[in-house]
């Protein structure tokens, strides 16, 4: 930061202190102008402390976009969870097929977009649903449409990036994939393992235990342990939260470690509003004859933590990892494949041409020498 300052080097220390004091004031909007020359020793601001502020305003004006993919078999509450997370009912008009229709169903890709606005910050959210996954009797290759979709989005972005007009690139890349694990089970099933193995190098996978109101506390702990052990055993790399910086305060660090300990998140979703038992407030929940489950109560499930994780703290990190790691991996692989293919074609071409030339040249050479010899002989004779 100091390297950008010119002149008045002698008074650098006072300037520094001046600048830091100012930065506290200027956060929260309203630029306080470029730092002019104030009096000697007083708070002379250069003003670059407003950089974050400028970035903030620009980002708010531009708006954010986020693509979320949800994968899991039918009936695990994916749509309900999305509705609960974003407080919108995205799937009101959805029709569910009967069992006969599902016998031979293939996985489909269903994209829905909404625009959300909170305190002036606009979010363009795309939710990619995968109805039909694991519905058919024979689910061989039912993950292929999902894999192909992610590859296509990467390819599209790559082509756009290489294009001439790069002003209006729309980023369709999938930033996060929520994988729903069934709570009725002793861990991951073979099809869960297969899908995650194919996707973990292309997208950030966040495993989620669906319909967690099926499990008691002890059962939930057991299942989480088993899911983590299964993920380890099959060497599946789910999204790992970045380590906290040492200068973050206690609160954030505690929150982070809380969230990290919770993965996989055990969630409950609901489209209905119920009255809470202890506070009497009306929140989203499920009403049973034996009690009321509150979706946002951290003692009942990890929904609140998931929301903080996804929307509050790690959305940008998810996007960054997608951009820097998954996309770059794809790009490198894509380019080397294309290069090797082209190289192979070119090399073959070159080889064939070269070989033809040499034989012809040789032949001609031979013919020439023979001709020469004949001439010589004639001369002699």
């Amino acid at each position, binding site marked *: 930061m100091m390297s950008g300052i010119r002149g008045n080097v002698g008074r650098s220390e006072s300037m520094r202190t001046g600048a830091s004091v100012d930065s506290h004031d200027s956060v929260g909007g309203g630029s306080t102008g470029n730092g002019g020359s104030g009096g000697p020793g007083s708070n002379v601001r250069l003003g670059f402390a407003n950089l974050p502020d400028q970035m903030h305003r620009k980002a708010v004006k531009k708006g954010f976009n986020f693509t979320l993919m949800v994968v899991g078999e039918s009936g695990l509450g994916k749509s309900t969870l999305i509705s609960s997370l974003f407080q919108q009912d995205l799937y009101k008009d959805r029709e569910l097929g009967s069992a*006969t229709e599902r016998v031979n169903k293939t996985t489909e890709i269903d994209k829905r977009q909404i625009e959300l606005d909170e305190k002036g910050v606009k979010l363009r959210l795309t939710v990619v649903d995968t109805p039909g996954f694991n519905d058919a009797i*024979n689910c061989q290759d039912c993950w292929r449409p999902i894999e192909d979709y992610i590859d296509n989005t990467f390819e599209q972005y790559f082509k756009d990036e290489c294009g001439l007009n790069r002003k209006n690139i729309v980023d369709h890349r999938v930033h996060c994939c929520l994988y729903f694990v069934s709570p*009725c089970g002793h861990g991951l*099933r073979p099809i869960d393992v297969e899908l995650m193995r194919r996707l973990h190098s292309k997208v950030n996978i966040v495993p989620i235990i669906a319909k967690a109101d099926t499990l*008691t506390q002890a059962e939930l702990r057991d299942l989480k342990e088993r899911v983590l052990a299964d993920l380890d055993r099959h060497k599946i790399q789910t999204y790992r939260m970045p380590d906290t910086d040492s200068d973050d305060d206690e609160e954030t660090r505690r929150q982070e470690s809380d969230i990290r300990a919770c993965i996989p998140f055990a969630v409950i979703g609901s489209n209905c509003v119920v009255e809470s038992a202890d506070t009497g407030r009306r929140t989203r929940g499920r009403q*049973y004859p034996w009690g009321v489950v509150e979706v946002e109560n951290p003692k009942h499930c990890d929904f609140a933590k998931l929301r903080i994780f996804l929307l509050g703290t790690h959305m940008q990190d998810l996007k960054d990892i997608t951009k820097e790691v998954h996309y770059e991996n794809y790009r490198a692989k894509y380019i080397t494949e294309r290069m090797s293919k082209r190289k192979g074609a070119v090399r073959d071409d070159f080889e064939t041409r070269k070989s033809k030339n040499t034989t012809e040249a040789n032949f001609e050479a031979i013919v020439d020498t023979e001709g020469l010899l004949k001439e010589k002989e004639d001369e002699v004779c």
Partner: protein
Amino acid sequence: MTTVEVMKGLGPDVRTIKLNGHVGFDSLPDQLVNKHVAQGFSFNIMCIGETGLGKSTLIETLFNQRFEFTPSSHEVPQVKLKPHTYDLKEGSVKLKLTIIETSGFGDQVNKEDSSKPIIDYINQQFENFLQEELKIKRSLHTYHDTRVHVCLYFIAPTGHSLKSIDMVTMKKLDSRVNIIPVIAKSDTITKPELQRFKTRIQNEIANNDIHIYQFPTDDETVSEQNSIMKNLVPFAVVGSSDEITVNGRKSRARQYPWGAVLVDSEAHCDFVRLREAMLRVNMDDLRERTHAMHYEHYRRQRLAEMGFSDEDKLSLQEMYEKRRETHQAELQRKEEEMRQMFVVRVKEKEQELKKAEGDLQTKFEAVKKQHADEKRKLEEKRQGLDEEIAEFQRRKTAADNRNNLASGTSFTLSKSKKK
């Protein structure tokens, strides 16, 4: 003095008579029951459902016993069936209970062959019973009946509808066993959702012509209960073997942070009604149906395969005997054939051997003749030689004599005298 009237008419030549006193044959049902109770009953339950749906827990809850089932993993490559047999006693009634559980159902990526092991098992039990029935010396009353009496099909609580594998499997099994579908882990579904789910499943079952077990409504004593049960199918159950204390009483329940689900409460789940329907009210009907409907169906198919038919107007036993006789005759004929072949072969071999013997004989004769020839030749030679020796001796003596005459005095025969 009791008057008993026989109500049902039996036929034109059967008269119904009013009894004027107590005869005593009203104790017949009691006699029947006593006999059966002394023998003991057997009941076989099959539980089909995905891994982790709580099948073992529900059985333990139903019979209020810990059965030591081991939970299976998800990586079983093929569906397997595990039967376990237990002896239970309630009051003075003995029950031989067999629980057959599927492991690995619904776990594979390709679930097309999931129902085959199940169908094979059911057919095997029917086959065993059929074999026992067809034996000449049979002991049906001490036979341990292993035919599956009821199949509890566990449906996952998705809240939407049946899964494709549920429909396909139930369709394949509905003609072989009594199916009672249950919704497992139903404490994850709220009451309104449950009603919608049940209606949806009932519609799907009806639309696809799946014949699940219908509780009998022809007997007045149970028809009312059974018609209520019919509307409750599929039963939404919750299983638990853990007990917690609620209101001072210990009861089986599942404890959540938001409340406790009491297994024995009718307001929380249909467990009590399932137990009543299956064990208290209709257990004998289930056994009856398995024998009268499903077993007969299997038997008919099987015997048709074997070649029997009803049109020959012969009883099964006679047909069987006839079959057996033809089979025996067949066997005998084959034996004869084999014997003939054996004899022919033996003859051939004998001839061969004889020829060989003859050959040997001729060879021997030839050799002997040769031998005799040689001997004769040798004899002749010897004779010739003997004659020569004799000649030589004569000549020698003649020469000697001449010498003796010539010299007169010397009797020395000089050897050096050469001839």
